[in-house]
């Protein structure tokens, strides 16, 4: 391929296509990280998948993150994409407030997102609009909270049989 797809090329193409939607592009350990807004995320992901050169055809992973100190943007969703034809991977990040945890679903782009979005909903309480079947997946239905949010401690605080000093804590 004469037009070798590398991070610089992806960056310029994305900047050119979505000049207003990109909040930042970073590179960590050789992987490009596109930070955008949730209003634009679905269009950008769709464009990345359907672009004739980039062809990010594979959704490697989708997960939530929680940064309690990041006021106004406590929650995040990360998409890991992989272009098989170019053998390049990138990340797409969105941030949004925890009191409005609503993101548009990408199950229509990649069916793989179905269970991943259910998991993200289950553990972070992020609601994906347009998801065909947004139920908990690994926790019981009536758990009532989203356990990977940072406010929930690792262990049940009411237990008295586990003293920190015996565990080197």
């Amino acid at each position, binding site marked *: 391929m004469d037009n070798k797809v590398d991070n610089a090329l992806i960056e310029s193409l994305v900047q050119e296509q979505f000049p207003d939607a990109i909040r930042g592009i970073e590179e960590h350990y050789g992987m490009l990280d596109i930070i955008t807004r949730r209003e634009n995320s679905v269009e950008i992901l769709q464009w990345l998948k359907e672009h004739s050169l980039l062809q990010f055809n594979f959704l490697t992973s989708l997960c939530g993150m929680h940064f309690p100190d990041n006021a106004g943007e406590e929650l995040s969703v990360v998409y890991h994409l992989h272009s098989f034809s170019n053998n390049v991977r990138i990340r797409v990040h969105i941030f949004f407030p925890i009191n409005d945890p609503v993101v548009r679903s990408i199950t229509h782009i990649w069916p*793989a997102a179905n269970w991943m979005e259910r998991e993200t909903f289950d553990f972070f309480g992020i609601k994906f609009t347009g998801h065909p079947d947004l139920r908990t997946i690994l926790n*019981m239905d009536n758990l009532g909270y989203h356990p990977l949010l940072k406010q929930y401690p690792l262990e049940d605080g009411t237990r008295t049989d586990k003293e920190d000093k015996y565990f080197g804590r």
Partner: protein
Amino acid sequence: MAENKNIEKISGNNKVIINGQLQTDADLSQYNYLNLGPTHPATHGIFQNVLKMDGEVIIEAQPTIGYIHRAFEKLAEHRPFYQVTPITDRMNYCSSPINNIGWYLTVEKLIGVEMPKRVDYMRVVIMELARIADHIVCNSVIAVDTGALTGFLYVFQWREKIYEIYEEICGARLTTNIGRIGGFERDFTPAVIDRINDLVKHLPKALKEFEKMVMRNRIFMDRTIKVGGISAERALAYGFTGPNLRAAGVDYDVRVMTPYCSYEDFAFDIPVGTQGDTYDRFCVREEEMWQSLRIIEQAMKNMPDGNYFADVPEFYLPPKEDVYNTMEGLIWHFKIVMVK
């Protein structure tokens, strides 16, 4: 639909009238709901399917994949890097070493440290052993599930031999916690090398026997060919990876496309399926075992000399004699073990 005098069918046309009422498709649905499971198909945790059946045909399935989340992420939030390794054992306990080493590679990339070639080769040997052990489980158990127990017993003793190699290297068998961030805690001992060479020499016979029993077996073929077929497009859309993706006809192997751990040094073939059905998945795994043996053979033959650990004192525990006899060793030991 049973004979019912209130039902009148208009011939040549699919309209059905019951008690003078034209019926919609929804009214006519004669679906049964069947609760399949909870069962224990492979890993711990229950798998339940609520099936919507039209006669014997499954129209829809609503799976509950089991309440098996063990909060690895939450646990890892609270631990230093080296204490995360035992958690990775539990991610797929059929091939714990691959997960361990995947974790080491991640941390080593994060802290920016280059491994000596010998560490890479030792890791490749262990990972390929783990791949064989894992594929032995997959392939022999599908034979059991389709009605042939004997083949399972033939190859399972070789999984046992692989566990003995792990045991010799790191002391553990199933949840291995094998190696360290920054290399290995000790070099391969002569006993390890003997056992690996023994395996490479004798496993092919058992594998051939197993293939002879199963691969062209009429019953096995009837029960796996065209069962659970997945097209390449669908496999990609649903995020398949590894042998399942290759069985669907996508020639992608991360060891070739993005070589890590010096995989670029080895010659091996990538088996690819055509139908993406259970039989193809079986055959891809079967061939991968042969290729793994090839890789192990090459790695053992060309094993480079050199250190079995890298120079990362912040993460790699110093040898005990240094801890007791040198100030520097003691400081690093203290920093790794006591300070978090």
